[in-house]
């Protein structure tokens, strides 16, 4: 049997092409930034990763609220897929941050609002996925994932605020754009959109996979009403 072509692959391919173009610009066209040197080029991945991690987890938050009310398995699958991608991006974010901080500041880790927030984000949402695996049935799995996603998401700005407010940060202040070249913008924006498309693509793939898993392990459609010997619907009880 020929497998059907899933349309989300188009999004994935476009994302990959854009990422390739953006990275080519970032690595070979844009001049090295004077005070960070070559390692500064990691920004072209780091900044889009940060944007998209937050964007995708915001999407998860919205999906979670929706799933809690409509209880649709497809929403549960999309929610879980997006949290998984969010966790992946956040993990990338933390790793990239460390890779950049080591040569630049001579440290892997420090007390910095964005660093701490990213780390907490990573642990909190990894916890959501882990809780999911402990649920007893599909309905519970949906409710747990949605509730934990909502609760964890609300925590993010509070963590950011409190860590930022307590002094001692090393993080760069928002460093764009205006003073830099067109190529710089182009590379950054291409990568940002590429990461978003790839995120959407992976979310779709995961959601599809989760739905397939559900279908494999879960119930077939509920059998309809029981019929009596004459083929009429059986109704228990007394009406009068």
């Amino acid at each position, binding site marked *: 049997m020929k497998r059907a072509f899933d349309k989300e692959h188009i999004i994935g391919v476009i994302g990959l092409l854009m990422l390739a173009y953006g990275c080519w610009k970032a690595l070979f066209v844009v001049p090295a930034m004077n005070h960070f040197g070559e390692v500064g080029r990691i920004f072209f991945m780091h900044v889009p990763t940060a944007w998209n991690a937050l964007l995708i987890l915001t999407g998860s938050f919205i999906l979670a609220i929706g799933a809690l009310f409509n209880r649709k398995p497809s929403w549960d699958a999309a929610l879980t897929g997006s949290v998984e991608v969010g966790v992946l991006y956040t993990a990338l974010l933390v790793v990239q941050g460390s890779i950049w901080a080591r040569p630049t500041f001579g440290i892997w880790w420090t007390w910095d609002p964005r660093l701490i927030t990213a780390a907490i984000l990573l642990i909190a949402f990894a916890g959501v996925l882990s809780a999911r695996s402990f649920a*007893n*049935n*599909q*309905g519970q799995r949906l409710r747990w994932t949605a509730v934990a996603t909502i609760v964890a998401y609300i925590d993010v700005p509070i963590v950011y605020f409190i860590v930022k407010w307590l002094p001692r940060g090393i993080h760069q202040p928002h460093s764009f754009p205006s003073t830099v070249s067109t190529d710089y913008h182009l590379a950054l924006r291409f990568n940002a959109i590429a990461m978003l498309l790839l995120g959407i693509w992976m979310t779709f793939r995961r959601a599809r996979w989760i739905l397939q898993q559900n279908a494999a*392990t*879960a*119930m077939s459609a*509920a*059998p*309809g*009403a*029981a019929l*009596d010997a004459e083929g009429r*619907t*059986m*109704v*228990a*009880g*007394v*009406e*009068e």
Partner: protein
Amino acid sequence: MAATCPALEATNLARGYGDRWAVSGINLRLATGRSLLLAGPNGSGKTTLLRLLATTLQPNEGRLQVLGKNPTDDAMAARRPIALLTHRTQLYNELTALENLEVSARLLGLKPDKQRSTALLERVGLSGRGQHRARTFSAGMRKRLAFARILLQDPQIVLLDEPYGQLDPSGFGFVDKLVEELRRQGKTLVLSTHLLDRAAPTLDSGLILKGGRMAWVGPARDLPAAYAHETHP
């Protein structure tokens, strides 16, 4: 309108656990003041169905109406007239019998009333045990205490899941009397049991479940014969 609404109305009700349907395709209409005898082998879905009717379990499919109200619209309003007795007695082990009753009373919005509670304990055969903790009770005594709580709630719809279970012979007589009394008071009653000959004569209609499916419906008095036929064809 409310007068014509059945006390319980289920349409194609279904509920699954994991990868199997515990009950499915349940159609049921029970008028106010009528009673239903629920029978079926172990694991046939009797408890699941009763918990669905009690609205503590959400159906995966189908619709339930309690006195014309949809539990998904207003869970609290639909729940108020229902009481459910299960094999888990839902007691606080570290509280005394009286305290367990008082907790329910307060949550029902009733004023704590020790005299009423003591009278209820007497009625279920637990006189003199009011100050004892639930932990010290035997299974049968716990069941009696659970009955007292139902009487305290005084609901319009009473769902009894194996009310005879764990009781001694005097307890059997107690349940018989109670069922009779609830019927006289015009309560709507659903009772599941394996003691078919005991329960059948006093109830209106019957339903046999097999593997979560409705296998037989008819008058309760015909149920014991039908049950023998259904389970050993």
